[in-house]
């Protein structure tokens, strides 16, 4: 029996019971139901009988993942698994909250982010999720556009379909879609952490540019056969923005989004993608960009977002400012010069733990905000929102403490010491 009936009750390994409430949707391998799991509404993925090549192994792997636990809350991770019923089974995971939509709907322009900030947040959240997954010793193996639920308001991301996730060294035997797989996997290699990172770069490119990184004028045959997919995504891949090899450039009128958006991203973002899809990386020879590198890149990108009064969001060079297409010139009075990045000091900009706390990768906790003085609109400052006391040093060399809620009035030449050897200088433009 493959389909479950409403009201049907099944026992789980965890000695609980699930009762089928309604059907939510169907995928290639099974059906997802809303269920009552010991009084709590949850989702049950129920596999089609005989769709799994090695069901016992698959079952054990999910059980293993349940025992080891989820990498972070962003994963709709298996929480319990049912007993076998008629040669098949299912696992229980949290329901997708209603404010989350499908990533593929975004690719099809049916959903959109509320702001450039939420777009970049989504990139950060995806990278963070995969970093945590890999740190926990897992790899994802068949990452694709169907694996993400996105909150388009905030950029929060949930990662689903965690049934193929495997411990390092194991292979699920589940074949991913060519379009999303690392070229060496398309050619037959087992997926691992490095190949996951390639898929991650594909997803990030799709998210920011709206087109596939390997689909250009060379890869647009009248009939995309399986053999051609193997060629374009496996043996002969070429990045559409390869700086030297122009064979596979995007096509005007077709790859509109990538053509329009590529120049709008700062050079360091373009460089990151050029590196991620460089010919060496495409041949699986050089290590792929690590999550940490992506994280630093997107933290920098997010801190450069300046919203024009007209509503359009920009990535502004903190040292220069930006001209909006509405005609307005947005000038940035000053910026905070850190070792690896500059943060524009412009009202509405926030600093996060990843900026002000040494070695932190936390891009969610706000630790400071740029504000305009109530009495003097021409004067701006940085308010410390963290519990850590900063020390501000000016030309006189005197270090003045700035504790929680205190404001550093912006003046060129000041240095802020955030503690633990982390400092930044205020530079006027």
């Amino acid at each position, binding site marked *: 029996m*493959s389909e479950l009936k409403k009201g049907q009750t099944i026992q789980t390994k965890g000695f609980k019971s699930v009762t089928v409430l309604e059907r939510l949707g169907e995928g*290639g391998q099974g059906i997802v139901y809303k269920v009552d799991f010991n009084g709590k509404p949850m989702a049950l993925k129920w596999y*089609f*009988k*005989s*769709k799994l090549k090695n069901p016992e192994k698959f079952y054990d792997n999910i059980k293993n993942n349940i025992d080891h636990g989820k990498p972070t809350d962003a994963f709709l991770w298996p929480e319990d698994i049912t007993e076998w019923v008629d040669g098949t089974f299912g696992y229980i995971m949290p329901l997708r909250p209603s404010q989350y939509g*499908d990533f*593929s*709907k*975004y*690719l*099809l*322009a*049916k959903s*959109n*982010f509320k*702001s*450039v900030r939420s*777009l970049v947040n989504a990139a950060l959240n995806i990278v963070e999720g995969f970093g945590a997954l890999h740190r926990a010793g897992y790899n994802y193996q068949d990452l694709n*556009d169907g694996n993400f639920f996105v909150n388009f308001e905030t950029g929060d991301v949930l990662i689903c379909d965690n049934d193929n996730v495997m411990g390092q060294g194991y292979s699920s035997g589940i*074949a*991913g*879609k*060519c*379009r*999303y*797989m690392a070229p060496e*996997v*398309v050619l*037959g290699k087992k997926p691992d952490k490095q190949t996951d990172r390639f898929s991650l770069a594909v997803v990030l490119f*799709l998210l920011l540019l*709206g*087109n*596939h990184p390997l*689909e250009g004028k060379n890869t*647009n*045959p*009248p*009939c*995309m*056969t*399986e*053999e051609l*997919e*193997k060629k374009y*995504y496996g043996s002969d891949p070429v990045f559409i923005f390869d700086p030297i090899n122009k064979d596979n450039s995007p096509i005007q*009128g*077709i*790859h*509109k*989004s990538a053509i*329009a*958006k590529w120049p*709008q991203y700062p050079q360091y973002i373009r460089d990151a993608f050029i590196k991620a899809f460089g010919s060496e990386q495409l041949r699986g020879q050089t290590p792929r960009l690590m999550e940490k590198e992506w994280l630093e890149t997107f933290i920098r990108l997010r801190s450069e977002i300046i919203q024009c009064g007209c509503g*359009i*969001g920009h*990535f502004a060079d903190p040292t220069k400012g930006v001209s909006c*297409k509405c005609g307005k010139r947005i000038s940035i009075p000053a910026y905070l010069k850190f070792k690896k990045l500059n943060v524009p000091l412009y009202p509405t900009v926030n600093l996060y733990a990843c900026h002000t706390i040494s070695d932190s990768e936390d891009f969610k906790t706000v630790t400071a905000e740029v504000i305009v003085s109530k009495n003097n609109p021409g004067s701006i400052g940085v308010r410390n929102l963290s519990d850590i006391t900063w020390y501000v040093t000016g030309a006189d060399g005197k270090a003045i403490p700035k504790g929680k809620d205190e404001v550093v009035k912006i003046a060129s030449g000041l240095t802020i010491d955030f503690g633990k050897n982390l400092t930044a200088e205020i530079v006027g433009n």
Partner: protein
Amino acid sequence: MDLLETVAIPRKTMVLFFLVDTSGSMMGSKIGEVNSAIEEVIPELKELSESNADAQIKIAVLEFSSGARWLTPERPIEAENFVWNDMDASGVTDLGDACKKLNEKLSTKAFMREATGSFAPAIFLLSDGGPTDEYQKGLEVLKQNNWFKKAIKVAVAIGSDADKSVLEEFTGSNEAVLEAHSPAMLRKMIKFVSVRASEVASKSANVDSGDDGGESKQDAFIDELNNFKVEAADSADDGGGDVW
């Protein structure tokens, strides 16, 4: 276009072809069942197409009886916009003409003309009899067509009078032919084949598929069909028994 503007990602197109026998013997419950089953499956195809970033699904319909006629003469119609018009049954079974007409449209100059390209189509043949025309010639030509070669091909034999060997010839395999002996079974098969063949055909190929050693989409779909046959046999008891 600023950073927050979006246009739909260019997708491949996958055409699902329905080739329906509308000869006189289909009259009554058979054609009625085919009409309502296809009509009911359209919303599912629409949903599949709407959430599929790899390809959009289009539908083309060719009916054959005394001669063959396209119900979608201009071009395949997007699943989102497709409206099913009931077919009537009368006349003989000119499968050869259907092959000929299908061959004409399986070309980049006809139905397979897409700026962003296509995946190989899925071709679904439904028949309850045997050809009354010289079908071999039409089928031979069709079999040389590259689109046809790469397509997922599947047939349902409706009732025991259907000429299964011809359907095997058409699909290239006896495993790709299903037999329906009751309205309930026919309905189930139409739904299963339409949805699953479209799903397999409209997604980027799985990495273990393709020519060198692995499975083609047709093979992958045949695996599904075989599983379907096993499950259908298991649940045959509640089907109400054979009527055709």
